[in-house]
């Protein structure tokens, strides 16, 4: 294996030199650095979800409350900056998800004939294979969330849902419909099915992702980690039930 090991030698420290940006590049191209970015972006996206859910639950209060909220939000000067930031967070999270997942598939280039978990867990649909755990499905759950997000952008940003009338005719001409009437139409359209599936899958993503992010960031402590893991389940359930309730309300109750 002499030849193999020779290929895998790092450049000697003297050859690498130290420039102002080099350490950042090595950090961001390392496995640990990328997991770190994954964790930070994941947690910041969780923060966005809380704010987004709180705002959207105002549809239950009524049309006026919701329209005022939407109007105030959109008159904020810094909203475009926040939206760009949010987009960058998502972009980094998704790009790294594809990169890391493809690395991981390469690292296990030949799969096992048989694979069983040694983790003690109540019997699941998947028997003793690791597939009964949400951590095995992060890329798949993420991809479903991505599909949901694309549908969501078509509905709410691009205004291209064919089942929704985004404008109203008034004596003064054609103007944009108020946010409440748009959201009610969207939540009553076919998209609602995607929303229900997408947000429930988001819950599964977070039930592992939330605590996993702390672990990736090195935030592990015998006193707090058990609580973080319990909180992750609670948080995931609140987010999933909170968001999924909206399309269910739109389809069946409203």
């Amino acid at each position: 294996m002499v030849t193999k090991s020779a290929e895998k030698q790092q450049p000697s420290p003297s050859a690498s030199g130290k420039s102002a940006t080099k350490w950042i590049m090595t950090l961001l191209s390392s496995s640990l650095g990328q997991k770190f970015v994954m964790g930070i972006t994941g947690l910041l996206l969780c923060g966005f979800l809380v704010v987004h859910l709180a705002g959207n639950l105002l549809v239950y209060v009524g049309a006026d409350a919701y329209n005022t909220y939407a109007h105030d939000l959109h008159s904020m000067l810094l909203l475009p900056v926040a939206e760009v930031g949010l987009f960058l967070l998502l972009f980094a999270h998704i790009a790294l998800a594809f990169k890391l997942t493809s690395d991981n598939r390469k690292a296990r280039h030949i799969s096992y004939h048989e694979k069983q978990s040694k983790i003690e867990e109540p019997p699941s649909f998947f028997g003793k294979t690791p597939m009964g755990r949400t951590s095995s499905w992060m890329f798949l759950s993420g991809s479903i969330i991505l599909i949901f997000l694309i549908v969501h952008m078509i509905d709410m940003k691009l205004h291209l849902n064919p089942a929704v009338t985004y404008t109203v005719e008034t004596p003064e001409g054609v103007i944009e419909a108020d946010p409440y009437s748009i959201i009610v139409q969207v939540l009553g359209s076919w998209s609602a099915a995607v929303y229900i599936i997408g947000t429930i899958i988001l819950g599964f993503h977070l039930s592992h992702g939330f605590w996993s992010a702390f672990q990736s960031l090195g935030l592990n402590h015998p006193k707090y980690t058990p609580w973080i893991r319990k909180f992750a389940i609670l948080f995931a359930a609140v987010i999933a039930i909170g968001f999924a309730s909206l399309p269910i309300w739109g389809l069946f109750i409203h």
Partner: protein
Amino acid sequence: MSETLDLTLRVWRQPGADVAGKYVEYKLTGISTHMSFLEMLDVLNEQLHAQGDEMIAFDHDCREGICGMCSLMINGQAHGPDTGTTTCQLHMRRFKNGDTIVVEPWRAQAFPVIRDLVVDRSAFDRIIEKGGFISVSTGNAPEANAIPVPAPVQETAMDAAACIGCGACVAACKNASAMLFVSAKVSHLSTLPQGKPERSSRVQNMVAQMDLEGFGNCTNTEECSAACPAEISISNIARMNREYMRAKLCSKE
């Protein structure tokens, strides 16, 4: 429970590193339940030898669970069904008469198969060469109490030092990640005062070599720790992540 077992073994056979392999089935009769798994393979090899067939190559050394040489994916589990156990310490009483047992080598890009069930784990050695040591000038042994090490710190370091470097963590991880192994070595040395001087360079160099070898990335599924014969905790991985970020962001190295 019967004292002897009749078994079907489905074993990965691969004559060499760059040759295609396949599963071959073997029937075994009269295997004593008191045998270890490796002794059972010895019996099979004797039979193969008597028939003039190639024997099955597998790694082993101490056969007492301390050297980390034995391996094997047994029915989809690294080191077989028991927790905290190496293959050499696994006994045939864990199996039932008539069982079919699938035996595979560790599967990882970074652990290429050399022959049959033997894989090349020298990637681990190259990682150790990058920092799995402390540099001390030799001389008289220092006074034992000169450097106080609190008991909880000793325990953390000793728990991490229990790693025998067998590679079960890589084998069990769906991403073939070596982070449990590397984190055990980093934790063992960086928690002790003797390891502190090289703390920053150690973690950076070891992680860089780990990446270079083509191991996967941890997704915190905890399969590594569950499969580990030394029961190394994933809290070591968090410590390595911390050490790494501290070194990258706060040290001059």
